[in-house]
């Protein structure tokens, strides 16, 4: 297990370094940052002054490693726009995005797993067809459009829930539904196909031959084995949600990381953008690692020596 963890960890560090390098290069290749910061009416002297002030006149490599070493100490520099520490900015916004992501994932799992199990148990039945219909729509429909429909129906027409903002838990209901509906189909279908695979396994026949109640056979013997890949996928989906919440946060004006990233890109506030890219990458890697560890813990055969 330790061996396995160390292996995965070293890969993760390498990936993280690459992500940081790409994020850094792209921002610096996107134009003259000093000119962008100084504004459209700045004189040549002002631009040079800004360039020197922000250290943009130093060699690229120096800038990169300086940024990287301070980032490792969780110091991401200062935002050009807000003129405050990036760390604090991110720290304020992160809980909103994390809340949204975790709630959406739980919502997706709560719907996807029972639906997938039922679809497999009553294969080709009404539930199976219905859930397939729902999941095809979920995968085909762009989630910003679904979010707008939700707003129109539940906020504008029925007035049950607020349109935008992040004042109370009510503000999170619609964004969570919109975000989870996008992750749900893949989880549901993986549960269903995993269950169908397991149902034909010899040990399920053994369990039935032992005269166990149907519920025990399905949940204890089948789901326990079918869930292993679902757990790994769920962790990865959470990563997608954290990264993909930009659109949803923009629609619902939730002041989360996504919204911050969106605004910062528009304002050329590159320390903030870099920091968010890096943080999302860390989350993503940590979650895939978590997924692997969880599936190893769930499967005694993987647990053995690693």
């Amino acid at each position, binding site marked *: 297990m*330790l*061996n396995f963890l*160390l*292996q995965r960890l070293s890969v993760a560090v390498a990936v993280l370094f690459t992500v940081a390098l790409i994020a850094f290069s792209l921002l610096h290749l996107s134009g003259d940052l000093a000119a962008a910061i100084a504004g459209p009416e700045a004189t040549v002297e002002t631009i040079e002054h800004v360039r020197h002030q922000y250290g943009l006149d130093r060699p690229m490599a120096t800038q990169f490693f300086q940024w990287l070493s301070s980032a490792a100490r969780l110091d991401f520099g200062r935002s050009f726009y807000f003129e405050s520490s990036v760390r604090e900015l991110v720290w304020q916004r992160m809980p909103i995005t994390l809340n949204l992501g975790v709630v959406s994932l739980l919502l997706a799992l709560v719907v996807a797993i029972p639906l997938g199990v039922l679809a497999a148990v009553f294969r080709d039945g009404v539930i199976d067809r219905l859930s397939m219909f729902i999941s095809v729509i979920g995968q085909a429909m762009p989630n910003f459009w679904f979010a707008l429909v939700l707003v129109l129906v539940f906020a504008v027409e029925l007035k049950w829930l607020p349109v935008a903002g992040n004042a109370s838990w009510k503000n999170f209901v619609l964004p969570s539904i919109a975000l989870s509906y996008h992750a749900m189909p893949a989880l549901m279908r993986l549960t269903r196909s995993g269950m169908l695979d397991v149902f034909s*396994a*010899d*040990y399920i*026949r*053994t*369990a*039935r*031959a*032992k*005269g*166990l*109640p149907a519920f*025990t056979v399905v949940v*204890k*013997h089948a789901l*326990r*084995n079918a869930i292993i890949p679902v757990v790994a996928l769920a962790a990865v989906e959470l990563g997608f949600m954290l990264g993909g919440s930009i659109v949803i946060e923009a629609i619902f004006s939730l002041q989360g990381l996504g919204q911050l990233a969106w605004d910062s890109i528009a304002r050329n506030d590159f320390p903030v953008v870099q920091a968010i890219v890096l943080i999302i990458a860390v989350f993503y890697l940590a979650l895939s690692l978590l997924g692997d560890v969880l599936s190893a813990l*769930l*499967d*005694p*055969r993987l647990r*053995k*020596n*690693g």
Partner: protein
Amino acid sequence: MSDDALLEVRNLRVDLQTSNGTLHAVRGIDFSLRHGEMLCLVGESGCGKSITSLALMDLLPRNATRRADALRFKGVDLRTLSDPAMRAVRGKQMTMIFQEPMTSLNPSWTLGNQLCETLRAHTDATWAQARDRAVLLLEKVGIPSASERLNQYPHQLSGGLRQRVMIAMALMCGPDLIIADEPTTALDVTIQAQILHLLRDLQREFRTAVIFITHDLGVVARIADRVAVMYAGEIVETAPVRELFERPEHPYTRGLLECIPVPGKTAPGQPLQAIPGVVPNLVGTLSGCAFRNRCACAVEDCRNAPPLAVLRPEHGVRCVRAGRLSGVQAPQPDTSAERAECAELTPASRLAAQAEDDVALELIALTKVFRLGRGLFRSPWEIRAVNEVSLRVKRGTSLGLVGESGCGKTTLARMLLGLMPPTAGSILIEGKKIDPTDSAGHRALTSRMQPIFQDPYSSLNPRRTVFDLVEVALRLHKVGTPESRRIDVGEMLDRVGMPTRTHHQYPGQLSGGQRQRVAIARALILRPKILICDEPTSALDVSVQAQILNLLLTLKKDLGLTYLFISHNLSVVEHIVDEVAVMRGGVIVERGDCTQIFHAPRHPYTRTLLASILTPEPGLGVPDIAGDQETGDRCRETENSCGLRPEKDR
């Protein structure tokens, strides 16, 4: 129904809905079982024996329907039971042991959990009580340090131990009936003997009735009280075990008994009495006797469905000529010609062939080492799957390589075929050293040496016709013109006994035996001198096995072939080879002339292997193979399952 009957089955029928129509898997069978009796259901694959057991347990697949006039178990008609009531019977009074010990236990739960849940589902025993019973039963089935095993997971145990756990699980609630569906087929011969011994002892001790399903007449003879022979969904003969083996009545039963090689009884090298033809298709209606197309004694009357005639007490036969065939020797139209051809291949001539000092294949210190477990904190460790094996096979003779799973015999074959580079050592074909890893060497090797694999179901490309499958080798080696190739392939397919109408069929349309014939034709089309036969008949039914063995014997004589015959089936090896090499743990522990090995084995392991052969002789019982054999081998076996077999785990 007699008073002491535990189970009474009358006119049981099972239909399966398939894409080709309704398959009548079980076509009206009757049998009964007394308390504490061991009934063997024996038959070839597809005869409906497993479906019968699943029908009793009400565990049939979704596409199956069950009908019966009576299914009485302990006086209760199982047909009338509701689902929960049937569930209360299943696992408590009637339990089952399956064929595949490797996959029949849930990998995610501990053994203790899986053992205890059975008892907890049927009684109000506490976990502690259930654990006590589990420990008791694990000790009963011969598992050392039972209480520690409860916390282990199935993957930590070898196949033989897992099957012991399955048996303990079946005994948890003290059942009246255990249905064992081929419980030893997936196990090595020495382990098979131990498990059979155990089952027989437990059955006597607990006075449990057992329905034992198998295709192996050797097993039947050693453990059964009564036997029911199934063919094409019917019971064609039923009798007490001694009676059945000594006075078989039905032509099918007699055919089955004659087509298996028995060391010491059948003459080595002589053609076996194969049952011609294949099992009829059970889709659609089948009228009259199902066996009549393969039966040498068939008469006009056989077009009418024969009733089950009771000849002697407890001896029933479903044949219109029942009772009039004993003593009548079945005419042998199919094999008499082969018999004449092979007549000169008596042991004396086999020895003469050996005398020519003409080595076809020679291995010198061939070694294969698998390096495993490279890790950050672990030094690599290695397994010597094949350890300095040296062998010589003389031209025109056959060498049998025997051993149990994990002994390295398949690895050896793979190196010979150039599918795996050897770590050390060399391969000489007709005196010339060949490097199978370079392309010229590989070409030279494939033109002289060809394989026949175990599983004809997966070793033939399903998208090519029979003709293409055989012709492709000629095309790859750029032999002849399209016209000459057409003639060559046609001749070769005729030679292996494939009728012309099958030449443009796909493997999916062929039976197992036909597929293996195609595999043999494919191997022979390049006119190789050596055939590597890796368990060529172990995936086939016994009646088909006899056909293929006869074919291999004829081909060897006609074409002057040399065989390296790899098998775990010692009876088959004894029948077909001249010399035997016994392999264990990657080394050859004993080698010698076939007669010497079988009659005067020197190495203790060879003796154990020979003692495990179950010849179909009732009354001999199951040989007692030392129990520590298996536990001592456990580490070796578990290592094998994770490392020694780089190919798919069987």
